[in-house]
């Protein structure tokens, strides 16, 4: 099913819709949004569009059996990663779970290396060793891509610990889903972060469901409010509105960077696709609910309407951004297709630093066994 931006956008019609539906986002007036130039706004919009087109293209590749394993699409949640990552400074870091393509694009990873990773190719960001759930780009302060629900949250806390230890003014954003909040490791990390005042923001991407279990069926109470039990600040914001994401996150990022204060931010969002592409998505939520979100809350549509109303986007510009995103995703698929697979010889590389750096090896004995 095509997502809303698939239909040819009409700027005027959209502007009218935006006008009649609601007026401009209240978050637009936040200083962090006021300082956005036209070009910045177009860049945010473009990144969201690139995520969507990348995900749609990867779905087609999956259906064509080019991709193995799981594929968890970020479609519908684009404003969250893009809003958060657009605020990153030199010493800010990101870590997330297995629904990790959106964050990867938002921190600036190229589509080629990502698509190639999905194809299991040697040119992939993890040389074909991680797959969809395990993208990494430490050079962009992006620490994955983690497959165990909630398992990345102590790691994100550790990134913050390292920042504080080194005296760097930065923050770690540790993303998780609404299902992850019930993991013990998450609560342990909350306690450590608050106890030691570590500059970490725990970002709950609340898309309403953990696989097929709705929030109401898995979590007691308000998700963000749990922070209060650990004496941490918390807030909730609208993940369909990139301005709101930025305005809310900016406050907490500043507190983290300047005063080394942790926080929990729940960002309400929605995924249109199944949990993974293997999920037929026909048992646990009504179709009408998905349609309602698509029609009224799609983050790209919402932002597009806002930018048209602001006079930043025109029909022609939207069309060219969309076409470029599609072309880029297509080129990434071609790149992935043309790339070589790793060889069986590569299986045992990247296991030990020492094995990969034999000249500097200090230990002796066998590292690998038959």
């Amino acid at each position, binding site marked *: 099913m095509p997502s809303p931006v698939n239909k040819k956008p009409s700027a005027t019609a959209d502007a009218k819709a935006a006008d009649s539906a609601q007026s401009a986002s209240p978050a637009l007036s936040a200083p962090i949004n006021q300082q956005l130039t036209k070009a910045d706004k177009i860049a945010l919009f473009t990144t969201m569009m690139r995520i969507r087109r990348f995900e749609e293209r990867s779905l087609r590749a999956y259906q064509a059996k080019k991709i193995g394993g799981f594929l968890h699409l970020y479609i519908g949640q684009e404003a969250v990663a893009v809003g958060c990552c657009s605020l990153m400074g030199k010493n800010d870091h990101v870590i997330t779970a297995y629904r990790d393509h959106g964050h990867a694009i938002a921190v600036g990873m190229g589509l080629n290396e990502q698509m190639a990773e999905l194809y299991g190719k040697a040119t992939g960001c993890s040389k074909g*060793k991680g797959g969809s759930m395990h993208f990494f780009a430490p050079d962009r302060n992006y*620490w*994955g891509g983690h497959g165990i629900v909630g398992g990345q949250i*102590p*790691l994100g806390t550790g990134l913050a*610990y390292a920042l504080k230890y080194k005296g760097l003014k930065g923050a770690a954003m540790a993303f998780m889903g609404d299902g992850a909040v019930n993991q013990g490791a998450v609560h342990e990390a909350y306690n450590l972060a608050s106890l030691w005042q570590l500059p970490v923001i725990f970002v709950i991407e609340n898309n309403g469901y953990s696989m097929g279990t709705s929030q109401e069926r898995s979590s007691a109470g308000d998700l963000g409010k749990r922070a209060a039990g650990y004496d941490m600040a918390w807030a909730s914001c609208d993940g369909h509105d990139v301005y709101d994401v930025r305005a809310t996150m900016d406050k907490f990022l500043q507190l983290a960077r300047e005063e080394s204060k942790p926080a929990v931010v729940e960002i309400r969002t929605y995924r249109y696709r199944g949990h993974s592409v293997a999920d037929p998505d026909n048992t646990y939520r009504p179709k009408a609910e998905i349609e309602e979100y698509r029609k009224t809350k799609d983050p790209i549509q919402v932002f597009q309407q806002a930018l048209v109303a602001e006079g930043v986007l025109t029909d022609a510009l939207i069309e060219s951004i969309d076409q470029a995103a599609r072309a880029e995703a297509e080129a990434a698929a071609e790149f992935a297709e043309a790339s070589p697979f790793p060889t069986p010889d590569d299986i045992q590389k990247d296991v030990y630093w020492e094995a990969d750096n034999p000249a500097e090896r200090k230990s002796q*004995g066998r590292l690998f066994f038959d």
Partner: protein
Amino acid sequence: MPLITYREAIRHALAEELERDKNVVVLGEEVAQFHGAYKVTEGLLEKFGPKRIVDTPISEAGFIGMGVGASMLGIRPVMELMFWSFYSVAFDQILNNAANVRYMSGGLINCPIVIRGPANGGTNVGATHSHTPENVLANHPGVKVVVPSTPYDAKGLLKSAIRDNDPVFFLENTILYGDKGEVPADEYLIPLGLADVKREGSDLTIVTYGRCVLHSLAAAELLQKEHDISVEVVDLRSIRPLDIDTVLASVAKTHRVLIVEEQKPFSSVGSQLAFMIQKEAFDELDGPIHRLTTVDAPAIYSPPVEIEQLPNPQRIIKAALEALQ
């Protein structure tokens, strides 16, 4: 050479490495103000201050995971587990995150963490506190596993572990903490993956590590005196990497092998050793490879019976005589 305890040897290694590298930080339950549940870290807080020596809440998954994350950004955390037995509540952080992150990132991320603490039975603390997880840990490619038996080895190996760029799991022994041994005053390192022949002999090779080395040496002494049997004792010191060459050289000399380990039998370190010895030195063997392990049950509490559940010199002598039949 100064005589110091195993505990002091570990402490000295920590102190020297804390001194050498400001990114080394010691974290764990009770390591700072309480001076360590087994007093290994005594005095370190006073010397290095609370930034370097950090008391954590009882939160193994949280703080070990935090250490793993910090190590990805260049910190070199040395995390104390009050008992290695508690690794089970941090299993995901240790064996999914620390062990896999380098691989899954295609070699982009390193995890130079050390996790250390005691892993042994024999102190009548029951099944929950007596695990010996070296086989479980070593089953995970990407990690290194070290089990020192003497103060000298403990110090030299720990210093190497802290400088290592891969995750190293360092398994100590509460019963050995008070044992004294000669340790040079000058700095030295022992490379991981280098076994040590602790006693030379010609009739039987005992391959062992950890506290079982001491039992094996005591047994070897008696076997020599009472049975005129000459036993060679090979201390692996490191489980992964594994110095199989030293083991095979000894087998080529004695042609008989007894593996002694404080492991449960199923898929133990000894199972792997036995496989490798038969595969790589089949023609050298004059008889089947024998193995003495902990008696296969959860650790019993009853003090006199726990001694019998674990390898001890008497059980080793019996097993050695069987191996030589």
